[in-house]
């Protein structure tokens, strides 16, 4: 059995760990509120843009559609854009995203397609490099970024569009975590290039009025496609940020609770050993007195 001194030391070390996890939990809770507000603020723009895109879609015929929309006509080289966080202490948040991306990548490879990776955030780097060595083509460093802004989304989107225009890939998928609640985050994968048709909400269908376009439908669509892509990436970054904070909060809450349980167990063990030591000492004294 561990000595009293050792037990005391362990109790103290668990206590200080608990303090750290508790602080991290509270920080995550505060950041989560902020991240949720940011995600909420981005929604009007995204929904309006999607509405405009959807109504333009129906107008532009197949042949004249821009490359970003129609694709290269091939389905051979896939790019996986995986958005992770830069910090851990968020439970299975990062590994869930990576797992979803890797299983999709394996499926694509088994179908004989080539897969490359574009990583956002540094937590996904190690597991993906291990699973697919040499296939991580690009990384976007977010270590300097405290909160994802539209600027980052813009830079990522324009890098992706440049790669696409340079013919580096045919299809791009984006992997991130959708924020459901502080307790549940869902790793999500979606195709971003070629741009998929936005779902038409039946309630916002055209009223049938003739709409004038300036300059014309195709030109507008051509301009809006990159913007739509940026908005999608921006939305994913915001969702990811909220998810990270939510996951972190839950994980740290569990850790704090586990530390509490451990402290209780150790304290009981400590008291028992102390009691045992006292009893032994008493028995020794009594036995000594009786012997006289």
């Amino acid at each position, binding site marked *: 059995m561990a000595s009293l001194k050792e037990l005391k030391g362990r109790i103290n070390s668990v206590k200080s760990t608990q303090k750290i996890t508790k602080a991290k939990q509270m920080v995550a809770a505060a950041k989560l509120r902020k991240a949720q507000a940011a995600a909420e603020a981005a929604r009007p723009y*995204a929904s*309006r843009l999607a509405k*405009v895109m959807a109504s333009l879609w129906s107008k532009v015929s197949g042949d004249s559609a821009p490359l970003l929309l129609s694709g290269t006509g091939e389905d051979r080289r896939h790019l996986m854009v995986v958005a992770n966080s830069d910090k851990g202490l968020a439970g299975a948040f990062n590994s869930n995203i990576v797992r979803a991306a890797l299983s999709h990548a394996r499926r694509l490879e088994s179908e004989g397609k080539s897969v490359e990776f574009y990583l956002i955030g540094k937590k996904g780097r190690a597991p993906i490099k291990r699973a697919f060595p040499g296939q991580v083509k690009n990384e976007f460093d977010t270590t300097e970024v405290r909160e994802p802004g*539209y600027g980052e989304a813009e830079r990522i989107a324009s890098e992706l569009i440049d790669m696409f225009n340079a013919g580096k890939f045919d299809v791009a998928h984006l992997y991130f975590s959708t924020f459901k609640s502080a307790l549940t985050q869902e790793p999500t994968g979606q195709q971003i290039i070629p741009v998929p048709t936005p779902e038409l909400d039946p309630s916002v269908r055209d*009223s049938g009025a003739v709409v004038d*376009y300036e300059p014309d439908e195709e030109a507008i669509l051509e*301009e809006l496609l990159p913007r739509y892509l940026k*908005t999608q990436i921006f939305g994913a970054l915001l969702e990811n940020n909220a998810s990270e904070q939510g996951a972190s909060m839950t994980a740290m809450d569990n850790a704090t609770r586990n530390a509490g349980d451990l402290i209780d167990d150790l304290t009981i063990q400590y008291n028992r050993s102390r009691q045992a030591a006292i009893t032994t000492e008493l028995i020794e004294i009594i036995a000594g007195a009786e012997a006289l």
Partner: protein
Amino acid sequence: MPLHFELVTPAALVRSEDVHMVIVPGVDGEFGVLEGHAPFMSTIRDGNVQIVRTPGATPENIAVRGGFAEVGDGGLNVLAEHVEG
């Protein structure tokens, strides 16, 4: 006869109000939007969107970059990537 005007950026809903007229710098030239304008979509060149609250009032300028305007039943929606001022 107010015109419902909304200015939205990816980060926030900047304006949502009823005004008299908005002058938008479209790619093919400026155009003013009053209430009851026909449905219309246009990309915007970087410049000032002028908001006239009441007839004859001095316009308020908002600089936008990377914009797009849509006029529909709900009024005028301006989507802009960046807004200054």
